[in-house]
């Protein structure tokens, strides 16, 4: 019973990890840039949601309607101003640039809103529903449903629409896509915008259940990498599966070992995957 219970809540949390991971893998796929500021984008989404809720009473789950376009614009801005300048630079320099951008984001937020922990408490924050004998946290369940809907919409967008196909073409072969008349630079802007919007959405969805503070992003950046590497860099289905697996591992090790060490298990799993199957569960090898 404990096993099923923690597996279920792990899978629900994993949905959010999948969302963060999909954003990261989309950016990596289209531009081959690893975004080390990804968790900080999530943090900004959390703060947006928090202030939308406290200042104008907008429900955190509804606020994604505002958070998504704002974060998309912010991501597009980052891409146009910074990232596209280093697309041909050393991978190390790309990594350092995004680390620098992350430092700027988290420290600006710290200066403006102080480093105090904020808690967004709604009427349903600690509510739970009974499901086949298992108790399920209400905010987690709602956020999982929204995550699933967004992931589904994203699949549809990438597979059915022209723009989605152009994005996938750019990810497959940048030069060939360019020869076919795809504006690869624009695809980069859209991919980064989408990645930022997904990270911001994940931030909005977890804000009722998480502490909100400027440094919260770092842990999520690393977790997003784990998710993406586990699933295979550049694979969106991989990131979805990876997110759910990481959520489950975390939740199970929290209930069977210690909640302080749950991240340790995630990182050990990460190292094992890197060493044993570096291409990930569903990815092609890019080593």
């Amino acid at each position: 019973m404990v096993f099923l219970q923690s597996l279920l809540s792990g899978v629900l949390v994993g949905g959010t990890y999948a969302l963060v991971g999909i954003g990261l893998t989309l950016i990596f796929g289209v531009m081959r840039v690893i975004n080390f500021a990804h968790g900080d984008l999530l943090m900004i989404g959390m703060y947006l949601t928090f202030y939308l809720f406290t200042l104008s009473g907008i429900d955190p789950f509804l606020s994604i309607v505002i958070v998504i376009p704002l974060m998309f614009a912010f991501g597009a801005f980052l891409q146009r101003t910074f990232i596209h300048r280093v697309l041909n630079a050393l991978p190390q320099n790309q990594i350092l640039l995004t680390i620098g951008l992350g430092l700027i984001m988290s420290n600006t937020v710290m200066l403006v809103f102080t480093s105090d922990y904020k808690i967004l408490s709604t009427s349903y924050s600690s509510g739970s529903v009974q499901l086949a004998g298992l108790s399920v946290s209400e905010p987690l369940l709602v956020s999982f449903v929204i995550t699933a809907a967004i992931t589904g919409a994203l699949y549809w967008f990438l597979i059915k629409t022209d723009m989605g196909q152009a994005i996938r073409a750019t990810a497959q072969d940048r030069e060939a896509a360019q020869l076919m008349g795809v504006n690869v630079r624009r695809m980069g802007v859209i991919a980064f915008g989408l990645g930022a919007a997904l990270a911001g959405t994940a931030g909005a969805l977890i804000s009722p259940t998480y502490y909100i503070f400027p440094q919260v992003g770092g842990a999520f950046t690393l977790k997003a990498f784990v998710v993406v590497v586990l699933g295979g860099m550049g694979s969106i289905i991989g990131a979805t599966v990876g997110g759910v697996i990481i959520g489950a591992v975390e939740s199970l090790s929290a209930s069977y070992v210690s909640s302080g060490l749950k991240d340790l298990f995630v990182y050990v799993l990460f190292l094992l995957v890197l060493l044993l199957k570096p291409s990930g569960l569903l990815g092609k090898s890019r080593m």
Partner: protein
Amino acid sequence: MRLPLARGFALAPLLALGTGVVALVAFPLAVTNPYALHVMILLFLTVIQGESWNVLGGYTGQYSVGHAAYFGLGAYVTLMLLQFRQVPPWWGVWIAILLAVAVAIVIGSITFRLRGPYFVLASIAVAEIFRLIALNWTGFTNGAEGILLNEIPPLRIGGRTITDFVSKVPFYYAGLALAATTIAVNWGVQHSKLGYYFQAIREDQDAAHSLGISLPVYKNIALAISAFFTAWSGAFYGLYVGFIDPGTVLPVEVSVQFVLICIIGGIGTIAGPMVGALVLVPLSEALRANLLSDLLFKIGIVSEDTPTGAFLKDNLAHAHALIYGILVVLVILFMPDGVLGFAKKLFSGRRRQTPALPEVSSEKGSA
């Protein structure tokens, strides 16, 4: 024709170096202001950190963003031995260093199979594992409480007390000696066969491998040298500050700082980390002492009485991480070879007659 010229050129830096060394050795005799000594010690510490990372990241091209692991290990083992087992630090530090090197070789053997961004990610994960262990193994490491050093026993040789570690002067000389050692090690790496192997791996590891350079062996040697001095710098930091906890010696920010020192100055050069330290330390000290906001008030950009002015005065002191971030972004976008490389480019642009310096290849990604 060229010989006397070359000699004349070699003499000037040697003289400058000599005067510099004498000035640095004599500094605590002339200046007794503890804050001035403190800033100098921070400079030495930063140079040691940068030069240690440089051996692996600069010369061998393995961008570790996990050096906090070795830094924290050095600090923790030395302070735990001293505080819990009463082992004097000049013995304890060797145990810490040996342990860090052993750990480094184990980690290296595992992670050096990975390349490019995957290696960076693995190095971060390893450092995070160390931080989580230090944070959660409360009975062993004091966990989040950290370790507060009571006192360092006086150093006695043959019954004579050399120093009792009360003032900052012994730390000054220890830092100076250690900084000089790491600089010498970098010089040695740059001018030895070992260093040529390292640089060959940096430029093209597959080509280096095909020429018979064993990648795992030489990457591990570079890491071992780097971890040796990184652990030493950690022990030095812990003993000097007298307090460590997982949040100050093991977070990702510390790992980023190691890289930053070198990036700002210029990666893979001996002077790079020194330039980086000369930029970073005064900058963060100026922020801490509120010099920057005072300057803004003086120039008249913002008035001290307005809400913005009050806000800046209150907050700029904590903004050094923000400034770090801005610096990284500016350096990567506008001077990808660091301050030194930038200056060199300016200089060679002015004097067209001199043959262009061989450009360091910047195309060799290894993803």
